[in-house]
């Protein structure tokens, strides 16, 4: 056993040294030399083939009676690897002069032009060819296999009366019985295929018989395993030599397949496993010697299949099974690499996947020889083996862009190696160590990919780094690392190193941006578990600022996106936790986002994403600043603080920002106004706070309204009228809450007069409009509230005093409107003065209706109409006169519809007579003073 292990190790060492000592074909000059060498070899082969054709042609001319050479050579026959040594021909190029030197040999012959089709088309196999293949070839091989199996069974169970020697003798006899006829018949072309099947079967039977001499109890004639092994080697050598002699890939493969099959049909034992190893070795030797890829592939399939058939899952000796499997793997891997060495190309792309898959399936299936306790170690060894394979493939095999070559070359090996390394780490470690192990493997893979310029490895390492990063997140390392390190949990330094490594990859080694995204993921994930006195929002915002700075320095271009993303997180975090965290935890994010907004201030942006990033930073700053103000200031001062922020923000935009930035900032100011209004409505209007004699309502809303009026006057404000309306509403509402429901109208009337004054003196149409609408509000409130609800507990005085005050305000408004406005084209201006007159007159009527009832109301309406009519004449205003007439008419209607019903007959007579006299008198006066009236009008 020890000797065998020594041999295996020696073989492995040999291959490893051969591979390691191989110079790296990375240098382009080396590659060029290799190509030159290959070209030279090809030229030699072409000249050799040409020379052989000439020889054949000469022979044909010299001996035309010879039968044509049989062409029943199997399709599988490979070109001769070792050309026959013949004297070199003179230089054939450029002219076929050597032909001219052979006239005696070719007197009448036409000059023969050799015809070498470059790519002869592969003829389609005819149906009869398939029949021949099936009947002549496959059946023969199956028959040989059956015969060998029969011999094996014969030796094991049958002829029990024979002793071991007898069984061995019978076995060899039967082997010879197949070999000798096969060798004899094989010379005839007609029977060549079945003959070779017989020969293969004979050799397989001989190999099995040799195996049985020690491996089978019933046929054991050799007790020493070493001698038994030597015997197997001997028979394997014989088989090999035979295969070399016949140069048939099919024959060789059949021989070895049958030999493996014979080993597989018997109860498993360590010796049978060891016996399969030399078989594999000699098979590969033959395949390498003849450059037969299919022999190697079939051998690999057969070796692993026979193992699974025979020794899985009831392998008698796990060590032997592992040794055998490792030996298979190393042997086929060595073959793959050594055959690729001269040309830099694999002999066959199939061997590596077949070998790897067979090895991994055989070792990792359930109940495999690998103990669960040793699985991590085994996986580590496998990872190391594949890593060696990857290194060897990187040095021996030239890069090939073909997909299959990508899989079977360096890329496949290194992928398997990394996967098994991850598996081994996952099996052996947990928690922090596991995640760290993942990261180390992934980082090493990236570094290897970087330094060896392997794009695939760099890509693959990104996937590995992702797994490592997510393992940090998923396994929640902090649970496994409760100890602290300098007041911090001990995972922090490790994660910090990982993050630093990722940024090193990205910034120093110019890796893909993906690395910095992974670093961001790690950083944000673990910042959530920072100690309680550190708030993640502060950390994130500071980090976002750093990223933005790096992005602007072109060190980390994706930092812009990352900063924007972090700002979203900061906003969310602050808005959720702001009212629980300490005040500075709101201040720091505000400060950092402010710095970001400042960095963006003059930065040119050309695309939409850039705009989004910029808006994100500035919006985050504004929201955080508002939140901070909300927390830091008394509730009454919040809305003014927001207004101050809006004004400063607008000033900053106009003075320092680039034009496109200024436009965005202006829109943010608009949005801020909405927040200010909502703040005023939700806090300040109902606030009962005071500073000295002044209420906080007035103290806060006044400057806010002033700020809005200032903003409305700025040239870059696109909707100045909105600001003026909102300022007006603020003023009206603050007066409403400051003075109460009923006194409000007096203040509103004053506002109306001020607006009218400004609108007429400064010729601001909007202010005139506002004055007109405020007048309407005053009228409505007087009628609906002040004349009905009496908050000051003094009904008559209040109603009358407020009524008179308001009516006086309407009168003043009427006179404030310049007379020239009645000539203007604008209907609003023409009707401005009459509008106030109408409101005032109606209000007087309403007041009279409420205060006076019955016949006195009729008189009052008549008086109002008369006075209004006179006033209309005095001010030469037709609308006033019409109002006077309307009042009079209303009085008369009331008189005839209500009052007169209650009069007795004499009173009715007097009333009618009086009215008649009144109207006649009025008519008379009109006729009498008609001219003067026209002048007055």
């Amino acid at each position: 056993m020890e000797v065998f292990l020594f041999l295996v190790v020696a073989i492995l060492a040999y291959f490893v040294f051969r591979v390691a000592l191989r110079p790296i074909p990375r240098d382009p000059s080396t590659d060029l030399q290799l190509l030159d060498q290959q070209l030279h070899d090809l030229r030699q082969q072409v000249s050799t083939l040409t020379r052989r054709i000439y020889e054949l042609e000469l022979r044909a001319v010299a001996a035309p009676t010879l039968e044509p050479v049989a062409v029943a050579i199997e399709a599988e026959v490979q070109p001769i690897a070792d050309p026959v040594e013949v004297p070199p021909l003179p230089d054939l190029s450029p002219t076929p002069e050597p032909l001219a030197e052979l006239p005696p040999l070719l007197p009448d012959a036409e000059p023969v032009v050799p015809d070498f089709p470059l790519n002869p088309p592969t003829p389609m196999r005819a149906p009869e060819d398939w029949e021949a293949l099936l009947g002549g070839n496959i059946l023969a091989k199956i028959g040989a296999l059956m015969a060998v199996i029969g011999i094996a069974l014969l030796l094991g169970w049958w002829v029990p009366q024979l002793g071991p020697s007898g069984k061995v003798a019978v076995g060899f006899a039967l082997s010879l019985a197949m070999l000798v006829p096969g060798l004899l018949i094989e010379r005839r072309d007609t029977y060549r295929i079945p003959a070779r099947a017989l020969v293969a079967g004979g050799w397989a039977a001989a190999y099995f018989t040799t195996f049985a001499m020690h491996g089978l109890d019933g046929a054991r004639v050799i007790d020493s395993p070493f001698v038994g092994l030597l015997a197997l080697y001997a028979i394997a050598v014989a088989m090999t030599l035979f295969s070399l002699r016949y140069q048939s890939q099919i024959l060789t493969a059949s021989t070895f397949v049958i030999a493996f099959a014979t080993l597989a049909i018997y109860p498993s034992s360590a010796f049978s496993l060891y016996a399969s190893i030399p078989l594999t070795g000699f098979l590969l030797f033959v395949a390498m010697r003849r450059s037969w890829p299919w022999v190697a592939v079939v051998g690999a399939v057969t070796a692993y299949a026979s193992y699974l058939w025979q020794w899985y899952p009831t392998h008698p000796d796990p060590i032997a099974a592992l040794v055998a499997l490792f030996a298979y793997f190393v042997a086929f891997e060595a073959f793959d690499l050594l055959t690729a060495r001269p040309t830099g190309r694999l002999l066959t792309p199939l061997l590596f996947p077949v070998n790897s898959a067979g090895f991994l399936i055989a070792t990792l299936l359930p109940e495999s020889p690998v103990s669960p306790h040793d699985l991590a170690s085994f996986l580590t060894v496998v990872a190391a083996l594949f890593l060696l394979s990857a290194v060897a493939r990187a040095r021996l095999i030239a890069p090939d862009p073909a997909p299959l070559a990508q899989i079977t070359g360096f890329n496949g090996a290194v992928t398997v190696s990394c996967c098994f390394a991850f598996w081994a780490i996952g099996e052996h470690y947990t928690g922090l160590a596991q995640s760290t192990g993942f990261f180390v493997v992934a980082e090493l893979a990236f570094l290897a990919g970087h330094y060896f310029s392997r794009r695939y490895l760099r890509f693959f390492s990104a996937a590995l780094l992702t797994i490592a990063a997510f393992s940090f997140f998923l396994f929640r390392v902090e649970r496994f690392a409760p100890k602290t390190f300098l007041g911090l949990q001990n995972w922090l330094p490790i994660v910090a190193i990982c993050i630093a490594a990722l940024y090193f990859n990205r910034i120093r080694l110019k890796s893909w941006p993906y690395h910095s995204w992974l670093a961001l993921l790690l950083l944000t994930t673990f910042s959530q578990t920072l100690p309680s006195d550190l708030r993640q929002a502060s950390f994130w915002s500071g980090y976002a600022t750093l990223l933005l700075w790096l992005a602007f320095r072109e060190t980390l271009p994706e930092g812009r996106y990352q900063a924007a993303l972090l700002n979203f997180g900061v906003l969310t975090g602050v808005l959720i936790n702001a009212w629980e965290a300490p005040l500075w935890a709101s201040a720091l994010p505000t400060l950092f986002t402010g710095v970001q907004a400042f960095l963006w201030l003059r930065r040119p942006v050309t695309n939409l994403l850039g705009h989004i990033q910029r808006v994100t930073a500035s919006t985050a700053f504004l929201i955080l600043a508002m939140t901070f103000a909300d927390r830091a200031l008394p509730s009454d001062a919040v809305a003014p603080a927001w207004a101050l922020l809006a004004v400063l923000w607008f000033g900053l935009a106009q003075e320092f920002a680039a034009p496109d930035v200024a436009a965005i900032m202006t829109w943010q100011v608009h949005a801020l106004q909405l927040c200010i209004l909502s703040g005023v409505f939700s806090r300040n209007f109902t606030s009962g706070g005071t500073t000295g004699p002044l209420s906080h309502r007035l103290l806060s809303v006044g400057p806010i309204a002033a700020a809005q009026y200032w903003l409305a006057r700025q040239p870059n404000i696109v909707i100045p009228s909105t600001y003026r309306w909102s300022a007006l509403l603020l003023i009206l509402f603050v007066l409403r809450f400051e003075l109460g429901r009923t006194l409000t109208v007096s203040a509103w009337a004053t506002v109306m007069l001020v607006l009218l004054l400004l609108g007429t003196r400064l010729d601001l149409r909007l202010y005139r409009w506002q004055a007109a609408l405020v007048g309407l509000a005053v009228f409505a409130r007087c009628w609906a509230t002040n004349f009905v609800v009496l908050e000051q507990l003094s009904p008559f005085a209040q109603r009358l005093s407020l009524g008179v005050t308001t009516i006086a305000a309407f009168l003043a408004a009427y006179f404030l409107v310049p007379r020239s406005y009645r000539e203007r084209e604008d209907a609003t201006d023409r009707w401005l003065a009459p509008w106030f007159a109408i409101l005032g007159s109606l209000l007087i009527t309403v007041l009279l209706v409420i205060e006076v009832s019955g016949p006195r109301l009729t008189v009052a309406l008549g008086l109002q109409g008369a006075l209004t009519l006179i006033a209309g004449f005095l001010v030469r205003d037709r609308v006033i006169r019409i109002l006077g007439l309307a009042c009079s008419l209303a009085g008369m209607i009331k008189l005839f519809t209500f009052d007169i019903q209650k009069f007795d007959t004499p009173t009715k007579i007097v009333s009618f007579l009086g009215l008649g006299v009144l109207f006649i008198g009025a008519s008379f006066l009109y006729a009498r003073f008609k001219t003067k009236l026209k002048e007055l009008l």
Partner: protein
Amino acid sequence: MTRGFYIVVAALVACLVATALGTPAASLSRSAASEIWSDVLRDADQVPLHLTRLSDDQEVAIGQQLADAVPFPIVQNPSLQNYVGDVAQPLLTNIERKNIRYEFRVVQSTESNAFALPGGHVYITDELLKHLRSEAELAFILGHEIAHVDLRHCVERYQYRAALARRIATLAEIAQAIGSVAFTQEQEVDADLRGASLLIDARYWPHAAADSFDRLRYQVSSGYYFNTHPSNGDRQLRLNRAIHARDPTGRFYLGVRNLQLQKARAHLADPNEWFDYADDAKVSARLNQTTNP
């Protein structure tokens, strides 16, 4: 930067400093928006209410129908019924709607409540009477209910249906109901103010109104009167402010003993129950003496 910028910034900074130095009292609420909404609805509702106003006779007829359907039994205690009516009489001298004839009744109920119907029907539960400490408090509650009638709050609920065609009335009532949440609250405030005004005019102790807010809130566990009439600090604040603005002068009657004996001031005027407006401490002592004999 323009001069206006610096002026505005200076004004805002000054405002911040001033408010920070003062006594802040703001809290996050939607009451401001609610009040403004209520103002708008009420003002908008006044015009159609004026146009569809019912005569006093029509209101009395509606009120009688509603009074016949009141589910609470009348307390069979003529002296108590008379006492409540006697307390209310001085309040009626200053009402605006002189054509309405008021009727006051004490009804049995486990809830502490009082309510009014169109046409001048005012009800107070015996449970609420148990929690009162003075005749002035009873007068305020009666004044509050009288104010509902005098301000036409009661009849407004039925006004559209009575005055308009059914379909139009339904639409109008739906529109009114949309704003009724804030609307009724404002009506309660108006009734508070008018009730306090009637109280002062009748020379009853003015602060009985505000006192009843505080005390009944904690003494009555179920069916609290001011719960059915939405109450808040702002309502009490307004009432106090209005009374203070009125600056009442002269002497006002408290009537602790009158309530205990169920003898109205008109029949039993105790000289010790008269207090000046500034005699808050004496009134408190008198009330405490009653509470802790």
